[in-house]
Structure formats: structure tokens, C-alpha cells
């Protein structure tokens, strides 16, 4: 019996995309927010990612595919599909309740965020993306697929990214502490 769901010519119906959206939007937006430093921009890219998913006939590894497309969209500043994004905006409104908003920004947290941003920006692009994807729960195979890496190199990439991130962050912290100490003296 044929389904009553609207059917996309490319082969993926809207209910599939909605499922993808509800499953991965939160992680994807968070990943993109961490990546871009802007929540609105991140949501925009995420919606564009799901629009692309609607066009895609088959997706074997959904999460890897979504993160890879989102990453490429950030790179390429892909054009937007306003009409389909409107539909997804409605879904985003519903999904937004599930996103745990960060606590109110204090000065200390803002300073930490600034250091974290500097540290993450200091990473190589591939290390940064791999780390952010891992933080969103992507497994090695998904990261490898999204970033077009060999599965065996993801561990090395992640270990390098983590070490450099922490070292960079600690360096920035020391510099800040030194400045504050000099300012106090």
C-alpha cells in the first residue's frame, strides 16, 4: 500500500528527513556552533544540511553524512534553499526545546569561552573538525567518512587534536594570568 507521506523525487520522503532532523539536529547545531562560534549561523547551516539530506537518495551513514555535509557547507558557504528551510524552521522551533541552553554567561565563563575559542581556532582544520565531531558522539568510522580519513588515523588525529587543544588552552591561561598579575602589580 503506498504511503501517504509526501514523496521527494530524489527518493527520500519528508518523514525521513524529519526523523533525521529530530535525531541529529541538536548535535549538529552544537557541533556547528562550536565550530563557527555563532548559534544562528550554525542553525542556518544545519538546516541547509537537512535540505541536502532531502535531496540525497540514499544515505548509508546518516550521522557521518550529515556532519560531513555540514562541514562542507561551512567551507563552501553553500547556497541556501529558502523554501525548504522554512519547513525545517518549524521543526527547529519544536526541536529547540530539547536543546539545553547554556547557563547565563558570567564574566568568568565568558573569559573561558574566549580562551577556548582561541585554542580551538589554533588547531588545524582537520584536527578541529574531528575533535568537534567526536564530542558530538560520532564514532571513528563516521569521523573518517565525514572527513575522508582512513579509520585508523582518527585515533591519532584525535589524540593530536586533544593534546594541542589542551596545551594551547593552558598557554593562553598562563598568559592571561601573567597579564592580570602584572596589571595588579
Amino acid at each position, binding site marked *: 500500500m503506498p504511503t501517504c507521506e509526501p514523496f521527494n523525487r530524489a527518493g527520500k520522503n519528508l518523514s525521513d528527513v524529519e526523523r533525521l532532523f529530530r535525531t541529529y539536529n541538536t548535535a549538529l547545531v552544537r557541533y556547528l556552533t562550536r565550530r563557527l*562560534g*555563532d548559534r544562528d549561523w550554525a542553525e542556518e547551516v544545519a538546516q541547509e544540511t537537512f535540505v541536502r539530506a532531502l535531496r540525497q537518495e540514499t544515505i548509508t551513514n546518516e550521522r557521518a553524512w550529515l556532519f560531513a555535509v555540514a562541514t562542507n557547507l561551512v567551507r563552501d558557504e553553500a547556497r541556501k534553499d529558502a523554501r525548504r528551510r522554512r519547513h525545517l524552521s518549524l521543526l527547529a522551533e519544536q526541536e529547540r526545546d530539547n536543546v539545553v541552553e547554556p547557563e547565563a554567561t558570567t564574566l568568568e*565563563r565568558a573569559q573561558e569561552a574566549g580562551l577556548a575559542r582561541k585554542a*580551538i581556532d589554533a588547531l588545524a582544520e582537520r584536527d578541529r573538525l574531528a575533535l568537534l565531531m*567526536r564530542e558530538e558522539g560520532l*564514532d571513528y568510522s563516521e569521523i573518517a567518512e565525514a572527513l575522508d580519513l582512513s579509520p585508523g588515523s582518527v585515533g591519532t588525529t*584525535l589524540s*593530536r587534536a586533544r*593534546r594541542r587543544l589542551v596545551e594551547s588552552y593552558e598557554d593562553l591561561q598562563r598568559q592571561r594570568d601573567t597579564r592580570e598579575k602584572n596589571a595588579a602589580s
Partner: protein
Amino acid sequence: MQHPDEGMIHTWLDGELLAEEAAALEAHIAECPECAPAIAEARGLVAASSRIVSALDVVPRGVIPIAKPVSRAWYASTQFRAAAALFLVAGTSMLLMRGNNSRSAALNDKPLSVAADSREAPEATAQIPPTVPAPAAAESPAREPAQAPVQAPLRMPVQTLKTTSMPAATPGFVAPEAQSAKKSPTSPTNSSEPKRGIADSRSDEAADRVAEKRNLGRESFNGDVHLDHVVVTGVAVANESDLDLKIISIDSSGATRRTVLEASQGVRVTLVEDAAPGYAAKAMRSTGMPVAEAMRQSAASAPAPRVATTTSTPATPPTAPVQPPAANMVKSAHETRTIKWVDAASGRSYSLTGPLTVEQLEALKPRVKKLER
């Protein structure tokens, strides 16, 4: 098993090693004290990097700062502007209504509502050459009724009386501009001596044309006032009692004192004060009734609005084309009326003459008495 590299340790910590590889690594770590610090460091890096990445979430939505509202001066605030706009609208409406009321009051037999038409005076003076004399009434008698309301806003009539023979005084009309130029109330052209040339006749025709044009615009004021025809150039005086009588000249000869008063702009009346009692008594004897009463009855007996022969001055060709601005003025500006009374206290007799109706003169009498006091 060799010591695992950092990548493998992270892979193991991330749970990404195959089961066999993980089992072999765990067996090695349990026996190798050198790898323990590396394992601990890797755990710390995983935890620390995760915390640092989480710190990135402290990003407010919309990093574009909201523009602060520009602090404006107190007079630039929205509330002040709204209040000023309201005040402007209310004030303008009030002025228009007051002007309209003044005009309506003028049409309702209130005397001397010259100010009601003051808004039209600038336009009129701009259009009319100041030296254009009025067409003689004898030349165009049929035109007079139509012109009476037309000419009103153009110029204010000024009546001057010969100081030597007041009862037979010949009223003359002169344009305010001409009068102001001559600086004398007695100097305007006397209607008995106009010797106008061709140029004056042409001026008459020009004045007639202007008067006809004015008549077209004037018709709108017979009914409702159309705002698109109104040019507000001044504020009408709402209360005519506010207008003080202005003494233009005083001429005392013998027992008679003749005072020329300006009742309103361009409207002048003459008060003759006779010290000899019995002046009014004569008039009473001649008519058999009080003079003022005779005036009222005569005025009521239209269509010939001329008052008692002893007090009405025959119409003579005026020298100014203008009539009183309001409809309550004398319909025919070529006539003057006189009212007389005797002050019971002093026994003095008074006569008040001017281009007004008897009712208007009566209304003017208390003000004259007040001025006398």
C-alpha cells in the same frame, strides 16, 4: 606487545578498538608501569579537551550586538514630539474655530466684527492698488448690493466727517492704505469733489473685476467654511468688547465738541457732544418720540433704510471701493446713521454718527459713554 602509541590509547579510551586489540592493550597496561602515566595523561587530555570544547557553548545567540538606543535630548523624545504635535493640532483647530465663530457672530448682528475678516486683509491689500478709488454709487446702482459683501474683505471703510458742518457732513471712503499714507482722518478724498480722469475709470474697472473675483470666493463663506479656501494669516479677535475705542481726533468749537473715534479697524464714528441742553429736546419735539426710538423704527421700515431725515446723511459717491467687512455692517455703505441721546446727569446731548446701523450704534453707545467717563 609494544607500548601503545598515543593514538591507540585515545582509540582505546574512546572505545573504538576492536575487542581483541582492546583486550591485548588492557593486558599490557596492567603489566607495564611506563604506560600508566601515558594512560593517565590521555584520560586527562580527553576530559580537558571535552571541557574546553564545552566552553565554546557559552556563545549567545546572535553575536551582533544590539544597538543601544541613542540618547536624545528631552525635546527630541517621542513623548514630547507627540505632545507638541497634539498641541499644534489643537491650537490650529481652536484658531480656525474661533475665526469661524467670529464670522458666525458677525453674521448674527453682532456689531463691528471687523476682526473676523482680518485673515483676508493681507491678500486683499496685495491685490488691490492702494490708490484705486471706488466706483461711484450713482454710476452703478444695480451693482451695489452684489458688491456689498464682496468688497468687504478688500478694504475697510473709513468715514470722515467735515468738522465744520457735522449734520451735513459728506461721508467719504478711503482706502486704509491711502489714509495711513496721509496720516490724517480728515484728509481723504471728499466724495463731493471727485474729478476722476480716464485713469481713474480704468482703475474702477480693475477694481470691479477684482471685486467680481472676490465675489466668487466669497460665496463659499455664505455656507460652510471650506478649509481649502481659508488662509490663516492672523488670529481673529474673539471678543469685540476687547476692542477699545480709539480717539482719532477731537475738535472743539464753541459749545460743541466733535470726537472722531475708531470703533474697529477702518470704521470710524463721530461723537458730537453739545453742551447746550435742549438739542435732543428739539429732536424729540420734531419726531414726537425719543430719537433712538425713531431710529429703530425707521431702520425697521426697510427697503428704504434711511433713517430719520434729520439724522440720516444722504448717500454720496464714495471714494473707496470697500464696504464694511462683515454682513452686519450697513448694507449700503453710502449711508451713515446717527443716534442721539441726552445724558441725564450732565444734561449734555450727544449724537453718534457712523457708517453703521442704528442697532450697531446703540451697541456702541455704552462704550462711548465709558470712554467719555
